[in-house]
Structure formats: C-alpha cells, structure tokens
C-alpha cells in the first residue's frame, strides 16, 4: 500500500525574468514503512521535492497524494492541518523552541493541536526511550548537545504518528559519529515503528541506511537504487557513491 504518491510533479520558479524548472515531471511511490533517501547534487531539486511532499509548497503541475489525500491546490489552512496530522519534519538546524524543555518540545505538535497532553504520556515515554533521552527530558535546548537536540526533533516528528517523516539534511549540522547515530535512529523508527521515512541528503553515508535511494538531477529522477535488505552497509555505500560519481561526471 503506497502512503505517498508523486504524479508527474512539476515545479517552476521565477528567478528574475527567467522561469526555472526546479522539478520537471517527477513520478514515484513510497510504501508504508519504507525508508527512502533522495539524493542529488546542489540545485537538483531535492529540497523542492521535499517541500512539496510535506505540503509546505504546492506543485505547478501534477499532484501528490499523501495518505489518500491530494495535496495540490489545498487551501492554506487545509495544508496546515495535513502537515499537523500527517507529516513529521526534521530540519538541519534542529529548530527547537528554546523556551520549552525537551519533553515539551516533543509534545509541541500535540500542544498545537489542542489535544490532551496526558493521553500522550506513554507515547512520550516510549519516544524518549527510543531516542535515549529519558534522563534529559526536562533539559532546555541550550543544555543539550547538537545530536541530542536532533534526537528531540526526531521524537517531535514522530509524536503524532505521522504518515511520513520528512528529514531535510538531518546530519548536515552534526559530526559524523553523531550523524551515524541519528541515521540509525531513523532506521530503527522505520523498522520498529513501521514509520515511513524520507530523507533528503547529499551525504552518501546517510543515504546508505535507506531501503531505496532516488537520484535527482535537473529536476528529474535519473536513477533509483534498491539494494536488498541483506546487503551490508559498506557495500551499499559503494553503490551509492558510484552512482553519484556517474551523475556528477
């Protein structure tokens, strides 16, 4: 069953007097529980695609169907509600609220939705355990390391059990060791919680954790890798790097 479907998605931007085709007919599906990485060189349109998938922006042509709901031409308010209930975001710069504790930051989507936080107690505890921050739940962001902050952000993205979790360069602002931990965490949420995850990255090492890697160039999908589950990480990484080199050449 596909959770997410992109149909002939096109996106044009006006840059001064020129029209730029950021996405030029992108077509793909994502299955429930799948871990997808979107890769591509700078300007390939991968961030644009992520924004369209998350309902932050609408396509110029084509449509995106998220959890059975078409996203194109949604009103601003409906798009907001789709994001609130069906999408979890993880950003490069963590983007936590400095006034809230780790726990409160995780519960933020629940708070915004006006739901009773108490009903989420169990969910919160299991997420804190998942991201390994049970003992730091009352800390404020400025008392947490970068990796810890990103883990809080992941827990926040998971709290509403969204249809998809979208991560935009989640390791981009972290050292490689912490980055590895974060990717493992996303991988676990996929395997253990059956969470659909889409990661946009230019870091091959991060992409190696994915079940499937989609390569973009100049706004079109140029390649897809789907290594078997059993393939070791190092081998996957080699495959990805080879494809990247080929694309950049």
């Amino acid at each position: 069953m596909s959770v997410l479907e992109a149909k002939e998605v096109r996106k044009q931007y006006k840059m001064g007097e020129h029209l730029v085709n950021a996405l030029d007919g992108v077509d793909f599906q994502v299955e429930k529980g799948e871990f997808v990485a979107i890769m591509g060189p700078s300007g390939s349109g991968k961030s644009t695609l992520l924004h369209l998938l998350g309902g932050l922006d609408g396509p110029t042509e084509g449509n995106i169907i998220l959890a059975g709901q078409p996203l194109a031409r949604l009103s601003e308010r409906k798009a907001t509600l789709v994001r609130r209930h069906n999408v979890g975001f993880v950003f490069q710069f963590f983007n936590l609220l400095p006034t809230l504790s780790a726990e409160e930051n995780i519960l933020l989507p629940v708070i915004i939705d006006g739901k009773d936080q108490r009903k989420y107690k169990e969910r919160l505890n299991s997420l804190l355990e998942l991201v390994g921050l049970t003992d730091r739940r009352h800390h404020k962001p400025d008392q947490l390391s970068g990796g810890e902050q990103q883990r809080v952000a992941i827990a926040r993205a998971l709290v509403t059990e969204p249809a998809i979790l979208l991560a935009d360069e989640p390791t981009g602002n972290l050292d490689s060791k912490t980055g590895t931990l974060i990717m493992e965490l996303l991988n676990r949420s996929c395997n253990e919680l059956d969470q659909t995850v889409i990661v946009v990255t230019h870091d091959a090492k991060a992409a190696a954790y994915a079940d499937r890697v989609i390569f973009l160039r100049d706004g079109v999908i140029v390649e897809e890798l789907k290594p078997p589950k059993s393939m070791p990480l190092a081998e996957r990484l080699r495959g990805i790097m080879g494809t990247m080199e080929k694309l950049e050449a």
Partner: protein
Amino acid sequence: MRLTRLLTFRSIRSRSLRFLLSAFGIVLGVAGLLAIRSTNQAALGSISTLFQNTSGLAKLTVTSSAVDEAGFSEDILSSIQKLDKIKVIDPMVTIRTDLADKERSQELDIGLFGTSDGGLLLHGVVPALEQMTRNYKLVNGRFLSDDLKEREIVLVETYAEDEEIVVGDLIKIITPNGDKELKVVGLIARDGPGQTNNGSFGVIPIQAAQEMFNRSDNLDQIDIVPENSNPSTAELSALRVELQERIGKEYSVTYPSGQGERMTQMLQNYQIGLNFMSGIALFVGAFLIYNAFAMTVIERTREFGVLRTIGMSRSQVMGQVFIEASMLGVIGAGLGVVLGIFLARGLTRLMEVILNQQIDNVLVSSPDIMFSFLLGIGITFLAAGLPAIQAGRISPIEALRVRGKSKEGWIIRYGWIIGILLLGGSVFLLVLNPFPYDVQFRLGSITVFGLFTGATLLIPVTVGVWEIMVRPLMKWIYGASGSLGSRNVRRSRSRTTLTVAALMVGVAMVIMVRGMTESFSGDLKTWINAYLGGDIYVTSTVRLRNDVGNRIQSLDGVAAVTPIRYFNVDWKTPTGETETINFMAMDVTAYTQVTDFVFSGNTVDPQQAIENLKKGQTVFISSVLAEKYGLSLGNTVSLKSRGGYKDFLVVGIVVDFYNQGLVVQGDWETMRRYFNIRDASTFLVKVDEGQSVEQVQGVIDDLYGKRYHLNLISNETIRKSVVTLMDQAFSMFDVMALISIVVGSLGVINTLTMSVIERTQEIGMLRAIGTTRGQIIKMVLAEAALMGVIGGILGLGTGIVLARILFIGMTTMSGYQLTFVLPPEAIGISLVMALVISQIAAIPPAIRAARVRILEAVQYE
C-alpha cells in the same frame, strides 16, 4: 565619512520608519518644552505689562485703606502737593456701570481668576493730568476737553466697535440717578491704558463722574508720577514712606505694578503642573529613543559582528551609532522647535480662555529655542549612549555564531540592586520629606525619575515570576499558542523590559493625570455646587442694593434668597506680612436655606459652626489658608476693618477655591459692622420645589430685570461653563498622557517586530509542523498581552505614587488641600487600556509573523 555613508545612512534608510518614530519622540518632547516655556513667559509677561501699561508713568498709587469702597475726600490732594519730588498728582474716580440699552448678558465670563460680568469701567479723570500719567493712543476724534463738567466720554476703539458706537454718538449709561447721556468725542486704541478691564473701558471728566454718580468731592485713587521718571527702588521706597507718613494711616500708598504679582503667583500653581508634565514628556521621548536604538543594535548585532571581524574598531562601531543619534537629535530637535513655535500659539489661545485674559502674541525667544534644541540633542545622545556602548562591545565570534543573541548585560543581571536602592531612596525621600516647601517639589521631580528607573530595573529579574503568574490567563484566552507566547517574554529580557517600561510610563501618566483631574475636579465640583448653590445666579453691572433681594424673596415660587458680597481686605498673616485676601459675606441664615457650607474634614459640627458664624466677629477660613498658614479652629485672623486691624475668631474651615482659595467667609452683619459695606455683589436664589427655574427666572427678569439692571443666569448654565473651563484646563494634561500612551504602543510595536524578525526560523518551523496562521497571531498577541499586564500593574503602582508626589508638591506650594481620589474605574480602565494598547500595537507584528514564508524561514540560518 564613506563608512558613515555606507553604514549609517543605509541603516537609517532601511529602518526609516523606526528612525521617524524615534524622531517623533524627541520632536514631541522638545516641542512641548519650548511651547510651555514660551507660553508661560508670554502669559506672565502679558500680565505684568498689562499692569505696567495701565498704570502708565504712575509709580505710586494712593487709595483709601478702608474697605467700604466709598472713596476718600479730595482734601488729601493739598497735603500731597506739599511734597516735592512729585511731578504729577493724578486724581481719579472709578465707576462700574454699563450701557443703559445694552442687551443684558446671559453669559458669565469665567476665568481662572474669577468671573467678569462684562460691564463698562469708567475712570473719571482730570484730562490734562491724566494725559501726563498715561499715554492714551487716540485713533479717532479728540481726547476729553479741559472742562471737567462736560458730559463727554472717550472709549476704547474695540469696545465701541462691538457696541456699534462712533464718534459723535450720544450714549446712555446707568447711574444711580437714572440713565444719563454722554457724548462720544474720541476713541483710543486697545493698547496701554486701553487694556484696562479687558478693553471695556472709557474715560470721562472727573466732575461729570462725581455729579452723575453722587460722588461729590470724592476720589477713589490718586496716581503719583515722581519728578524722576525712572527712580531707583530705594528712592521710590523712600518716597512711598514719606508720602504714607504725610497722609496718614487712613490711606495706603502702593506700587501699581505690585497688583500683577498676585495674578502671577496664582498662575504659578498651574504652571507647576505643566512644567512637571513637559519634563516627563521629555523623559518619555528619551525613553523612546533608547528603545529604538537598543532595538537597532540588537538587530544589527550580526552586522556589527561582521564589521568587527573584518577589522572595525570598537570606537568606530560606537561612532557609527552616535552619528545616527546625532542625526536623529538634530532632525528631531529641529522639527521639535518648529512644532513648538506653532504649539505655543495654540497653547496661548488655550491659556487666554483659561485665564480669561488676552495674552500678547507669543514671542519664542532665541535663547529658549537654543535651549530646547540643545536639550533635545543632548537627551538623544544620552539615550543612545548605552546602546552605542553595547554595540561597541559586540564580540565578533559571538555575533557570527549565534544569530542575534547577545549576552545579557550586567544591568539586566544586577540592575535590580540599583532598582531597589532607587525605589527605596525615592520612598524614603517621600516619607521623610526632608525639605518642605519649594525644594521639596524639585525633589519630587527627582523622585519621579528614581521611581521610573527603579521600577524599570526591577523588571528583568521579576519577568519570570510575572510570566508564571500570568501564563494560565494567557492560556485561557489564547489556548496553547497563549502558553507559548507567554513564555517568549522571558527570552529577551532586555527587550521585554523596555516594552514593559514604555507601557508602564504610559499607564502611570494616565493614572496620574486621571487621579489628579478626578481629585481636583471632585473637590472643585463639590465647592462649585455649594458656591453656585440654589438655582438662579443674580448679578448686575451696577451695585445691587440689598432690598433687591427682599423683593425677589417676596415673589411667588422663590424659596429663599441670599445676598453675597465679595470684597478685598488686608490681612496680617501669621508670618507678619500683609496680604490682600477676599472676604465673602453672606446672610448666613438665608445662605443655609439656599445652599450648604462645605466643611473641610470632620473637625467641626456644622450646625455649631454656623451658629458661631452668626454670632459675629467670627469667620470661616478656606482650607487653602488653613493649610498654607497652619491655622485651625480657635485661632484668630487679623483683618483690617474700618477701625484698624481686628481679630476674627476662626470657627470653621471650609472648602472654597474662590480667589484661588485666598478667602474668608463671614456673616452679613459682621461685614456691615466692621467693614461698613451694605450692597451685594450677587444674589443666589432658590426656587420652590416643583417650580420651573426658567419660569421663576422669567418672572424676576420681567419685574426687576430692567429696573435694577440684573443679569439672571441659571446656575446650571454656569456650572456647565465652569466644568467646560476645568476640562479645558485639564485637557493639556490629557494631551501629555496621550503622548505617553502613543510612545508605549510604539514600544510594543518595536519590540514585537524585533522578536518576530529574530524568530523567523522558529515561526517557520512551527508553521511547518502544523501551526496555523491564526495560532501564530495568537502567540504574538499573547506575548504582547503579558507585557501589557505587567506594564499595566507596574504603571498603576508608579502612577499612584507619582500622583501623590504631585499632590504633596501642590499642597505645599499652593495650600490646596486636595483629597486624593483614585476612581476605582481608573484602575480597571488603565489595566484594560494597557492590554488593549498592547493588543492593537501587536497586530502589525503578529500579521508579519503569520506571513512568514515557511520555506524561506526553515532555511533561514
């Protein structure tokens, strides 16, 4: 210079709105200061020149020291003539009358100094002598001939125009012997002596005056022009003493210019308030500038950081901020001066209404302009100083690493210690009151600054506590976004502090102005209701005989009539000086039937006090006199009666603001016996229950109106015009309060806009994870509301204390014992106001926040 062009000019251009808003603060401050200063001087100047002009070259004036207003015999002239050193001895008869066929007025001119019935004042003079004393500027016809019996008159041009009189006309005036005709032979300019009695003035030959008004061989005043036209103070004083000795104690010799002094003194009370307010306006202006500059520096932290990284020195950074400040100062102060000149004109017109006195055109002097201009620039520099230093201290690394987050300065961390000291010190000064009288008031002004600054410094450390207390309320109003917004105020404590302080000052000003207005007008209204008791106010441009009262009393529908007579009396104050105060005499029994005495405090049994007043040689004194000279029941006041100084027992203390409260009240009999006065100034008429006031007024008018030249005005009308006058006088204070409110709301806009810019990324994230625009708007509104609540509560506290300072100051200075009334609704209104302002001001930044583009924001580093 290139640096300035690149950085400062561009910074100003990109923040032109804020630049203009901060300039606005200085413009208002400087304009207010200049206008008030100039208007005060113009008003004081007009009053003193009025007395100088109308007294001409006369340096001394001889009047009777008796108060019966019957004048004195001409015989005295011969004994004065024996003195040398005197050039002109100018005798005069003063007559109050009116044109016989003039429409009787239904309006009463009311001013800060009392009422004017608009009648015609005539001076009976010896034309030759009078022209040597005063410089009449003839604009039409001729001056009086030397025939002292000729029935002719010279009028003031403007009066003649108003009454449609031209040279050659015969006019009829009211005299005790019926209407008499006078021929108008000339018109004089309303200038110099033409300013007498606000221009309702004319001169006639002295003997004609004496004949027509039964004043045979009788004078009211003799003006003395000495040989030396410009005598030194010592010479003049010597001459005065010599003259006084020669003519004896029955006469007083005074300096004519001295009459202006009392008016000036009265004006001062009002000016204290205005000066105080203009000081605060300037403080508020400075505050706005500080706020704006602090914001700019926070906003440009990154820019300054980059500049420091590439090698700009601290002093260069500070220099750039100061250049911006000086531009702001010059532009703001310059515009302020221009606005001030215009404002002074408007203020003068208002002052004219309040004083019921024409004021010469305001001349804004260049020293005043210079002073206000430099003060404006100076204050801008001072206000911009702290932000400039902060800008210089920005560390390059910090600025580049963390966006817009500057380390909290020691003022935020430790300022509360200074704050407590300042608050403690101010309260200590207030309670201890170590310097009574004049100095105390100046000290009061210092404590104002102490209080504001102290309270401001306490905000940063207490902001967390406030937030926790108010958060549930915000959550209740705005839901989850309310709770988020509420917490945001803790994030930039310095900025929150500035905004809260701006709101605090605004609310404090409103509380102070409202409190003062309410207290003042509360007392004033009680008094006016008593003073204008009854239903109809009967007055006349000519003397009222007491039997007019009896006649009115006998009419159907009239319940009671009391005569009232005001006259001036010399009083030997407990400090040994002689002061002229007002004696108000009334028929006590009738008076209590028409209206009530307003006793000050509960020190006396009203019934007993009234009985005591009837006994004679007793008086009620005003609370102003009691306060000013520390008098209480059982003391005596020494008043100059026809038989010399007599002691009158104080049997009551009453609220009476007539003649600025320099007034005593006594029984009709006491007046007759000790001061030999028999006529009335006014009658207060009370109408029978169920009777229409207009009807009774009509009956009196039909029967006696024309015969006794009565002006009948319903007290309701007068009360209304008095209230209007009061409102006009207080409106200036309201304007000042309004300015503070505007400044407060500008502060809110400033702060929240800054916060929104700074948190763009965060807002983007919130939007990305499903926060609606409405929720974002609520979040910003909640943040503003919280600041509104804190500012409102602190403003309420400081406002009450400030109002008290002003009260103590005014009581000590003027003797007005005011009851401090803080209307409970004012508390509610000011809190609601702070909230409403904060919400209105938060709308633009909230909309800006809601419009944050998610895509740009989340990538915003």
